[in-house]
């Protein structure tokens, strides 16, 4: 991982696979008064060069988060696998709303199934997990170039930049 902040980073293959797997996706933004906002996402995809990430969110739940991103381009996204607690956070400063493709809808559907299955491993009922995630019929997509990446698995190493 290139660690120079402010320049485009490249995710390694392992982390790229991890964030596109059975992980919780949580998207954060902030408004002009520096008040933060947050919404749970519905999956993501990584660009071919692994320097850009597109996160999918349910539009109806994400209004203020998307407004903030449209206004200032700043975004922070946490990816965490419930069954292992493995967690990373990616940040960007050029985030913008992008077109949702047919492939994105397939990604969101596969994410739903994988995420529910991971929650089942740690005792959550399928019905509950599906309710939390929702079917997300109206997707929105946010694409950003990686500017920083952090380890965030619970423990003393949380907050450190991702090692290459």
């Amino acid at each position, binding site marked *: 991982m290139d660690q120079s902040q402010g320049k485009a980073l490249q995710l390694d293959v392992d982390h790229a696979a991890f964030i596109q797997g059975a992980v919780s996706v949580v998207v954060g933004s902030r408004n002009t*008064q*520096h008040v933060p906002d*947050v919404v749970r996402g519905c999956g993501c995809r990584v660009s071919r060069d692994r320097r850009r990430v597109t996160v999918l969110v349910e539009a109806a739940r994400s209004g203020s988060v998307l407004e903030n991103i449209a206004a200032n381009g700043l975004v922070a996204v946490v990816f965490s696998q419930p069954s292992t607690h493995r967690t990373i*956070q990616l940040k960007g400063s050029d985030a913008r709303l992008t077109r949702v493709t047919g492939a994105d809808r397939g990604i969101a559907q596969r994410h739903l199934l994988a995420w529910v299955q991971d929650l089942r491993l740690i005792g959550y009922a399928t019905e509950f997990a599906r309710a939390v995630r929702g079917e997300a019929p109206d997707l929105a997509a946010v694409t950003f170039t990686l500017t920083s990446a*952090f380890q965030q698995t*619970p423990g003393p190493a949380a907050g450190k930049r991702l090692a290459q």
Partner: protein
Amino acid sequence: MTPPITLHSIRACLEGAVPAVVATCSGDGTPNVSYISEVHYVDPGHVALSYQFFSKTRQNVLENPRATVLVIHPDTGAQYKLAAAYLRTEDSGPLFECMKAKLAGIASHAGMTGVFRLRGADVYRVDSVTEVYRTALAPAATSASSLAQLRCCIERLSAASDLASLLDTLLDSLRDVFDIRHSMVLMREPAGEALHTVASRGYTASGVGAEIRPGEGVIGTAALARTPIRIAHATSEFGYGRAMREDAARFGITAGIEDAIPFPGLPESQSQVAVPILAGERLLGVLFAESTETGRFGYDEEDALVVLASYVGTVAAMLEEDEATDAEKPGRSGPRTGATWSADPGAPLRRERQHLRRRRIHDQGCGRRDPVEAAV
């Protein structure tokens, strides 16, 4: 009309059953998102977030106090956003102890024992609560109105004429009215800090006389910090079983049979709640309840036990005053049966315990619902 959403109305989201996330923003305007192990309900206008490591979240709120917390209802999956502002960090005292015990339970449940260690309770003011997302799932049904249940218990307790009947009625009422089937009262020795079991319900052995030291397990922590301690998942850190067994073994060698009374308790206990019984600021004892069911005691049950313990503490203090007044009267040779425990350090509680033991043996012959063994 749908009632407004308040912090109080979504307390179930703050039980730690489903992890919460918090968004913050640094002084230079960079957003950050982090998982929070424990969001604790402090009062209708405040929550406290567990501070375990010096994180970006903590650094950010020291620069810019605004935070948004996203919580999930453990029954319905509905999501709520709390607009919050960081106020202060507490690293000791009742709130800290309460969160520390609860965090130990959450860590145990999450397989993170040893990783989660509370360094502080970060207190936030909550400015608004908004519903982000509603689901089709219904919340778990509550059995009855807590107020009606409390009224029933208080009416029963009002009939008690001495300490022994007061405590017996308390535990019977928990069983009959709240369906809390395993409970006990421990009282503090006036001359010391140790707590001794004086009454129990639902255990194979009554354990009357068994000792808990301050700071030991949920009971000792509730006593030491003068605050309710409630955990929804079993945790070895705050368990009493192992420590008690070790104590019993140690005392078995060094002390007499009186001290070797095994602590009662459920070997498969999952949920525990311990509430101090106070007379003003003075600790009289602890009311304890437990269950093999995970998450058996919620905020509502804790509220109810706090109210009942408060009532019992007040009545016990009044009985104590009556006792002291009677003892001063000419011709009065000593305390009545049902004596209290502070006028003559040590003696009144010992008498009380002896009295309870006599009653227990007597009760065994009366078809009691919870048969108990003779401890001595």
